[in-house]
């Protein structure tokens, strides 16, 4: 657990990822590992050659040409990546991160993040990557793959981030939700931050009990409030964090099997999509 892994690309989320990573770095007293993965474009689709003719040395010529095209693109992407890393490093330092270790890698974005998170205490990532940047109220496909496969807490940065001064816990009495509660109790990341535990569901004894037990499991001196509201979880939670940009939404992630999720959709994904504050997912 040596650092906070912050993942950046050319999207507009890079600034808020840096701010959120800096906040986590200060709170956990860990340096930030700043990761950018070089994405070169495949040259296969760039050639526009539909002649369909293959002549002498076709395989070798094609390999040489594809390599040449991708090499040129890779140089360009590496230069861009270096500038990006330098800018982000400065921003992190200015925001008070305890240390910055820039890391520039080739490869698949998701695979590289999962490989690097082994040494990380938490992963910070933007809500959408460069390839999905302008699809508003949408969660990037790579982000979702990272969140599903990751074993570490994942902080998802919204477009704008201010240092969180309070926490909203999305609570549904499930195992992941209890783990999230436990983390709020123990992790230095949330030390002294007031907690608002929100549950979506009918106002009946069972839900009230679950909520009361959740609140009791926190220490007495921890400022905490609860709310039980009828409605769909994503709507209830979105309302709870609306117009509170200094809030961090914490929730247990993906309680259901991938198959069920495929059919009925995922509450987790829906929530990440609709809220406009940073989200911490606990596995």
């Amino acid at each position: 657990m040596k650092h906070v892994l912050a993942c950046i690309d050319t999207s507009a989320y890079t600034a808020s990822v840096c701010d959120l990573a800096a906040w986590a770095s200060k709170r956990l007293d860990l340096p930030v590992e700043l990761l950018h993965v070089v994405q070169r474009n495949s040259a296969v689709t760039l050639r526009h050659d539909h002649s369909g003719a293959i002549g002498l040395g076709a395989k070798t010529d094609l390999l040489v040409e594809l390599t040449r095209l991708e090499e040129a693109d890779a140089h360009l992407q590496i230069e861009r990546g270096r500038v990006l890393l330098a800018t982000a490093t400065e921003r992190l330092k200015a925001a008070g991160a305890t240390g910055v270790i820039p890391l520039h890698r080739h490869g698949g974005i998701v695979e590289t993040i999962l490989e690097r998170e082994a040494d990380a205490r938490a992963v910070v990532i933007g809500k959408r990557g460069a390839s999905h940047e302008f699809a508003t109220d949408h969660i990037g496909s790579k982000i979702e793959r990272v969140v599903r496969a990751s074993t570490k807490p994942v902080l998802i940065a919204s477009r704008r981030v201010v240092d969180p001064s309070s926490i909203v816990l999305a609570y549904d009495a499930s195992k992941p939700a209890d783990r999230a509660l436990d983390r709020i109790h123990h992790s230095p990341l949330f030390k002294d931050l007031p907690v608002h535990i929100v549950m979506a569901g009918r106002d009946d004894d069972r839900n009230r009990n679950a909520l009361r037990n959740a609140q009791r499991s926190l220490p007495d001196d921890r400022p905490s409030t609860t709310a039980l509201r009828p409605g769909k979880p994503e709507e209830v939670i979105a309302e709870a964090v609306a117009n509170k940009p200094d809030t961090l939404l914490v929730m247990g992630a993906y309680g259901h099997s991938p198959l069920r999720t495929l059919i009925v959709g995922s509450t987790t994904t829906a929530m990440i999509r609709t809220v406009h504050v940073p989200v911490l997912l606990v596995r």
Partner: protein
Amino acid sequence: MTSFAALKREWLANPRADLLAGIVVALALIPEAIGFSIIAGVDPRVGLYASFSIAVITALVGGRPGMISAATAAIAVLVVPLVRDHGVEYLFAATVLMGVIQITAGFLRLDILMQYVSRSVITGFVNALAILIFVAQLPQLIDVTWVTYVMVAGGLAIIYLFPHLTKAVPSPLVAIVILTIVAIYGGLNVNTVGDMGKLPDSLPVFLIPNIPLTLDTLQIILPYSLTMAAVGLLESMMTAQIVDDLTDSGSNKRREMKGQGIANFVTGFLGGMGGCAMIGQSVINVKSGGSTRLSTMVSGLFLLFLIVVLGPLVVQIPMPALVAVMIMVSIGTFSWRSIRDIRHHPWQSSVVMVVTVVIVVWTHDLAQGVLAGVLLSGLFFAGKVKQLFTVESELSGDGNTRTYRVAGQVFFASTDSFTGAFDYKEVLDRVVFDVSAAHFWDISAIGTLDKAILKFRREGTAVEVIGLNDASASMIELYAVHDKPAAEAQSGAH
């Protein structure tokens, strides 16, 4: 969703390029399907149905997106005797069994065997395949009028020169269209596709091969199925590697083996012949911008569309036009670099390559060529490693003890060098074998160590072995004789 994202990546990463590439590839599939149906002695529709079904199924379940599989030359040349002696229904049954064998091979993870196929063998395979494709065109070029030669030459000229004009249109298509128009309006006396047999006029239907389900039938088709499965997997694995290299991306070879199996299994029931991945067409696909499952799928669907909807036009295509396209595929498949490299590469590599080619061209069986190539490269390798063996010796000050320092690899091929490295006739009290820099690989090596030790003992010399590494020591523990009681009594047995 993880799986959804993966599906999107494998199908829709670049739909426009993949669609166009699939269409270009379909045009190169038709000549091979028709041409090699004729070689195999069946109606063109057997090859065309197979190409459609194999392309579509491997697009869905294969392990290498962007690779093109269909009815191929490599398989077609194998089944000639089967069709000639027993008929086409046995070919369908053999194709079904071929699929079963390939699926089994996938589950047995036989893809790891590919690591024993050296680069020279792969080059030999590719070259042999190119030669097979070319040789298969010869029947269309023998005993024909001069018009045929002119048309083939004209076709090749269009194929290679037209891209200098524009790369927006597939030049093989241009060649086929121009030659067809010339043949029809010029009233030229050349063979057409229609002369070669029936084309499909409908979608393929499911049918059980009409054969007796007996042990005799199995005995007939099993040898063919085994060879077809082996050749199909070999070409598919090699093509997958080529596509991996060209696109700089990975593939799931095991899934590809199973995918090939499923495709052939189903194809047999649809009245198609067996097939596999195609090197030439896969290169055309990548060259045209195809790299996902979509292009493979489109190539299969478009092929069927062309045949079923444009069938009346397809039958009028003159054979020389298809021969020209197949000569292009043959030229594009051949590794011309390997001819130049013959002089620079180590002679062993060149021998392996040439032997692979010669055996394939001779037997028309790519599996036999690869087997010979693999065996030969194994022998050459053993011969090279055998050289990594030295023995130095040193006599002690009092002249009674000699230390032999053995270094290198001791295995079946180096036993003679090992036994011959010692002077047994020297009168000594003690001999020390320092084997700290040697490795004993197999029971031949242990046997030869036994023999040397016992030979010294018979001369009354005490022998000590020092510096055995762990692996060698455990081999000796298990299999050696010299360290067990009564060793001398048995030594005659060595």
